[in-house]
């Protein structure tokens, strides 16, 4: 091979390679974009109206909102009385972490809801998205501490939440359960997904 290098040609080869690479990356954009949620998926996020008259104290109703389970729990006075006592064992008792995402202003209180009696939370664990199971009965039981006061246990990785959806310390889940935007249209009708109409 000759020692001489045609610098002019080498520059053009480099420019052509660079332009080709830019073109290749640009061509990848539409392909990667197809991974995004489709227009149909984006549109399917309407608010849900629920009649809560039939829920008895200590019971839970699950409704679907944006494909996720939303729980409406009517707490008993005993369950509400337990909540303040648990504060030292909780990771974020005052709902201070990511408040804009997880806890709307009207739920940043000791019971995390508009009305103390009714808790409205998205039933998806903040760890990896499983739906926790009801463990409303107090007392020792499998996978739970002996002084259990009632709440939720995530079957996937063992995170525990109290009756206000607040996560206990030293569990895989970093955050409390999300309180969705919600409002009372009347005493017995609840809307989930909007909080402006109240």
């Amino acid at each position: 091979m000759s020692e001489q290098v045609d610098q002019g040609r080498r520059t053009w080869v480099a420019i052509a390679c660079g332009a080709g690479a830019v073109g290749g990356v640009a061509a990848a954009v539409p392909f990667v974009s197809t991974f995004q949620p489709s227009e149909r998926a984006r549109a399917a996020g309407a608010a849900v109206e629920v009649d809560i008259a039939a829920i008895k104290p200590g019971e839970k109703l699950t409704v679907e909102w944006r494909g996720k389970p939303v729980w409406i729990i009517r707490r008993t006075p005993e369950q509400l009385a337990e909540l303040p006592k648990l504060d030292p064992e909780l990771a974020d008792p005052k709902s201070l972490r990511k408040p804009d995402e997880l806890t709307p202003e009207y739920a940043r209180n000791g019971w995390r809801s508009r009305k103390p009696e009714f808790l409205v939370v998205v039933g998806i664990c903040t760890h990896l998205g499983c739906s926790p199971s009801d463990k409303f009965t107090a007392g020792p039981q499998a996978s739970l501490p002996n002084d259990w006061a009632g709440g939720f246990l995530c079957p996937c990785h063992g995170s525990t939440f109290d009756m206000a959806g607040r996560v206990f310390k030293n569990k895989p889940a970093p955050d409390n359960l999300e309180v969705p935007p919600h409002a009372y249209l009347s005493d017995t009708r609840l809307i989930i997904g909007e909080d402006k109409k109240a």
Partner: protein
Amino acid sequence: MAEFKQAPADAPAAQKFLTWIDNRFPLTKLWNDQWGQYYAAKSFNWWYIFGSLAMLVLVMQITTGIFLTMHYKPDAATAFASVEYIMRDVPWGWLIRYMHSTGASAFFIVVYLHMFRGLMYGSYRKPRELVWIFGCTIFLALMGEAFMGYLLPWGQMSYWGAQVIVNLFAAVPFIGPDLAILIRGDYVVGDATLNRFFAFHVIAIPLVLLGLVAAHLIALHEVGSLNPDGIEIKDKRGPDGHPLDGIPSHPYYSVHDIFGVAIFLTIFSTIVFFAPELGGYFLEYNNFIPADPLKTPLHIAPVWYFTPFYSMLRATNDLMVNVIAAVIALATVSGLLKGRFGGVGKLALGVGALVVIVLLKTFDAKFWGVVVMGGAVIILFTLPWLDHSPVKSMRYRPGWHKGVLGVFVAFFLVLGYLGAQPPSEAGNYVSQIGTLVYFGFFLLMPWWSRLGEFKPVPERVTFVAH
């Protein structure tokens, strides 16, 4: 181009045809390079069967998979029913489906044993680093293939397993939530997710897998297989230029492998015909319930082959992050005191460790759980550079090295067991110890692998004719 060959005039028609082909395509050359005249040590023991078996299972998975796609429907509304349709209404559909589901577990059993063989005899040591790296990439691709395939039956375990794993990506700081949406194609696991996982499972990943398998074999046949003694047979050649301790793979290892295949298929068929669910380990019971986005089954666990890594994910809570930070601090202090490197290196070490510890405490334990789980697979890639033992094979390493390998394997199995169990406090502590042992085995290897009394390595392979 090679010169044009001419078969003798009186040669049989088959030989003339082969010559015709060889003049146009290197068929005989390929066969001889890759198998027919590929010299392997004659001292292989039964640990060397798993490579061939992995190849067999790959072919079986592709064949059964093609036939399953002819009846399966990748649609959230009909997927579950279409699998039941294959099981009940398609003639012999149950057999194809059970072969495919059992084949998935068989693939991992065979691959885990294949990797353990490598660990035992040092098959990853120079010059076989790329063979090992291609192999680890195959393992990674296989995990993706298995995970995406598991969503397709659209049962409860399919759904919630995918939900958990996709949410792993959401734990990545800053870009995580958007990344998870990009993977799912929706705000929750849904029809879009199922449809794209189908595309990945049936075409994208299998193509990558086939390419990687070809690269793995080409690299292996370039450097040559190692043997249980961990010595290079190419160093001792006979007058014909072939290794004295080697033997052409065909027919010797062809016959060996066919015998191994017969034993494997006996066990495989027994499972397919008599226990295709294998007590809930190969097919989980909850997966016979259609996916319900509103209710997670009471006990969810991944399929057995993912459970060791899943245990490590579960083990990483705030306590574990503190332990990891403490271990890094200790390692740094000992590095600063005993390290044989200059002031700049020590400064870099100190600053680096401080940054890592600050990051550990900044991001959620959840994110570090994902890092630990991913790291447990990625760390395998670095093995050729972690092992500093002067001999390759466990046979000639100090007795306690076998003990270290044994403890590693035992903890890997314990992690696997715990990952299949519901979460418990005691189990979590054991998983945390197991996670430390797993990473300790690799990260401390540059030190422990050179300690102890090594035995003399023989000149020629240990082989008794039979």
